[in-house]
């Protein structure tokens, strides 16, 4: 199997984020591998390991694909140190501020060219939080969409995948044939910490850098544009009580606010 894992470098969840010229200012904040993508990397490795492994010369490969500035190499390197085989980083000044539609178009072109059986993603990036790229990838690749999986089972010889997912409609079982785009929720596994050996090995692994010309996709300016943005006044803390009749005071507060 050829497995692709899509990852994104994002500002640290704790970093204070701000908008500059209608896009997130990424320069001024610490950047890390989107922690929800670690579950995707882990799941890809587990799928490979369950069916013969992804060591050199083994039957399966796990390729990390990312789009971002040069410094996204750090996030990609982390995924490699967990055990992925190689990586493709799409870097181009024209993709700064790309929206989900452009991102999915670029990723889909790279995935199409690579001929992957499975594409595994996290459910969302912790910065934009749209949760739309996996569905867009499935649409663009004409592949089966198996998203929000809390369990994934792959039968490589039959080229079939079945997943379990929890949705508003309840607990669903879904299945599909290769190629599939899968997104995995954080409950699915416990991502491994890169071992020292893994970190050393990752330094020698290939991160292929491509620009948009090499990918063969032109990126328009974003199809949705920010007109303006403004910081919201922080919520001020209100009343705080700690005495014995706190519960009564709380109920009175709710009644005053007409919430009861």
């Amino acid at each position: 199997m050829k497995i692709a894992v899509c990852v994104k470098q994002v500002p640290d969840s704790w970093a204070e984020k701000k908008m500059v010229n209608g896009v997130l200012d990424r320069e001024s904040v610490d950047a890390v591998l989107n922690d929800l993508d670690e579950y995707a990397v882990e799941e890809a490795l587990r799928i490979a390991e369950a069916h013969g492994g992804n060591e050199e010369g083994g039957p399966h490969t796990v390729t990390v694909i990312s789009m971002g500035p040069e410094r996204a190499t750090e996030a990609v390197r982390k995924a490699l140190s967990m055990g992925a085989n190689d990586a493709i980083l799409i870097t181009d000044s024209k993709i700064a501020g790309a929206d989900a539609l452009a991102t999915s178009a670029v990723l889909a072109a790279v995935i199409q060219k690579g001929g992957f059986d499975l594409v595994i993603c996290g459910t969302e990036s912790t910065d934009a939080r749209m949760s739309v790229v996996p569905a867009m990838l499935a649409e663009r690749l004409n592949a089966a969409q198996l998203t929000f999986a809390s369990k994934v089972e792959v039968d490589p010889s039959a080229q079939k995948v079945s997943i379990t997912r929890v949705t508003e409609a309840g607990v669903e079982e879904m299945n599909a044939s290769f190629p599939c785009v899968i997104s995995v929720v954080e409950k699915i596994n416990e991502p491994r910490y890169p071992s020292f050996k893994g970190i050393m090995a990752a330094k020698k692994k290939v991160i292929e850098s491509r620009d948009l010309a090499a990918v063969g996709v032109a990126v328009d300016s974003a199809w949705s544009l920010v007109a303006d943005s403004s910081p919201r006044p922080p919520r001020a803390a209100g009343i705080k009580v700690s005495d014995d009749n706190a519960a009564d005071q709380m109920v009175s507060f709710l009644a005053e606010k007409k919430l009861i």
Partner: protein
Amino acid sequence: MSNVLILADFVSSKATKTNAELATVGARIGEVTAVVLAPSGKGAAMAAEINKGPVSKVVLVESDAFVNNGVAAVADVLAQIIATQSPAAVLIASHAFGKEVAARTAVKSGSGIITDAVDVSADVTATQLVFGGSTTVHSKVSHGTPIITVRPNSIDANVAAATPAVETLSLQVSDASKKATVTSTQPPVQGGRPELTEADIVVSGGRGTNGDFSAVEGFADSLGAAVGASRAATDAGWYPHSYQVGQTGKTVSPQLYVACGISGAIQHRAGMQTSKTIVVINKDPEAPLFEIADFGVVGDLFAVLPKATEGVKARKS
């Protein structure tokens, strides 16, 4: 007058109250047509549920693929309707399913997409609250048909009774949209409480419950509220994952959010920060969630909640 499509929102064939919210927003832009995509034989009953808010018309398509093949099938037919009706905007409920439908529909129709809007104006400018609610953003789709998902509970809905005319369309779901198949569905156990993202009041429990949600549930029931949980509580297996509030869980925006024994990690705040009123109960006076509480109680939730439950019941009787 221009035409606006709303994708009618159903859970287990029951219309949600989000439909009136979508219609209210849509009516600012143009005449609202609700698109009802129903499994075979259920269309008439589901269309009849679109009976509130400023909806002028219902277009109905029946296909079992909407249930069996999910997002791909819904987006397929929605894109076909967009192609023939050229609406000024398409509005969809902003939950996981709605956002994925919007995503695929945007790709199919060559349109821009905005998700998690909390408001949309007459000129189709969307308001979003980003970065954990710390920043307000106004944006517009600049390409194709604006496809906007609107967060449930954000809009003060017009719920006047409506009897829109129903037009049945005969549209096919292509085989390309049937690549993933739902083989079984176990409906969630609701237990009579309102749905989390739709509820006017949400009472959530966290690490401080120590796994005992009875006090949280008791207080929630006295208020007719939904019950939520923090990631710590769902990770520990104390409450089902589908009730998780926060990043990777549900985003809620109720009139009242009561956080019990939740310290307030940034990931939790991301899912509840836009609640209109926030009440926090925590033993630890330093819990960060107190910073955004309108009313904070420093105390043991097992002592505070039963008393408060009695207090609420007394006022209601």
